[in-house]
């Protein structure tokens, strides 16, 4: 029997001890541990790595603590837009979804794109239509939205407005950008691609 196991992350940012109360640290510890245990249980019972990945990520998507699923950040229109992907190392098979607004667990739909479609990536309304054809129950976008994320969006918009009120700003090199806020802290950032 091969050794087995899993590793997870739930975001990297300016996570400092002084910014997280002992209670919040304990919440994170418990939720990360729950995700690890959910994935490990699949592996320990002889399940496949791909199913362990889905099991662990669903726990994190269902938690409002993290920027995925419930608790996702809001876009400029005040809506949560969710992306996910998954890959199977044995078959080099892959599935991905982008711009979802009503799929409770995007990682599950990414797996279905991989296993039940001939495609790798589906986006937006088309991806959600594919989900409906598979029998997914769609959730209202408000399910994902939390007070913290609404506050973060308000702050980003305030910063943006202070910079001239434009819907798109430009960075130091003249490239079109937008103001955003880090997942776990509040320093304003201009990010671009």
């Amino acid at each position, binding site marked *: 029997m091969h050794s087995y196991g899993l590793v*997870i992350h739930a975001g*990297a940012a*300016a996570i400092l001890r002084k910014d997280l109360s002992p209670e919040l640290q304990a919440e994170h510890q418990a939720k990360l541990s729950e*995700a690890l245990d959910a994935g490990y249980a699949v592996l320990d019972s002889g399940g496949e790595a791909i199913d362990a990945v889905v099991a662990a990520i669903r726990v994190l998507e269902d938690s409002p603590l993290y*920027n995925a699923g419930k608790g996702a950040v809001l876009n400029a229109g005040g809506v949560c837009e969710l992306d996910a992907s998954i890959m199977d190392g044995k078959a080099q098979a892959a599935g991905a979804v982008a711009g979802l607004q009503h799929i409770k667990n995007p990682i599950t739909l*990414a797996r279905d794109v991989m296993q039940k479609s001939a495609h790798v990536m589906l986006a937006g309304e088309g991806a959600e239509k594919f989900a409906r054809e598979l029998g997914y129950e769609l959730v209202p976008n408000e399910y994902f939205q939390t007070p913290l994320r609404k506050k973060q969006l308000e702050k980003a918009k305030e910063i943006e407005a202070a910079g001239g009120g434009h819907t798109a700003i430009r960075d130091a090199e003249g490239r079109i950008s937008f103001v955003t*806020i880090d997942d776990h802290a509040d320093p304003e950032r201009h990010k671009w691609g």
Partner: protein
Amino acid sequence: TVGCAALDKRGNLAAGTSTGGMTNKKFGRVGDSPIIGAGTYANNRTCALSATGHGEYFIRAVVGHDVSARMEYQGMPLEKAAAATLTNVSALGGKGGVIAIDHDGKVTMQFNTPGMFRGFRLSTGEKKVAMFGDE
């Protein structure tokens, strides 16, 4: 962003990533999370990996495939390959991190930010959950 990489009893690897992206994003912006080879990658010959951070930089550095390619073509161990790729991300100006597991069950959790919510659990009995850079 959240992610997971796993190795099962048959020696198969898999990885996944899920995200809400960036606050206040416009123009249908999409980062690295749904991009196979950037934010997510798995190859039974090398490793399974999920990334988090400034997606634009992780796309440009093709992070997932780059780590795997270093292992497959140069024979680098996972830890070293991930560090080299993350150095490339840093050089571009990107911040974030990666978690990965290789075909032997070795794990790595690397980041160039002050912290990263992370953890692993292995059949050897090892289990760890951490948040800050000094853990």
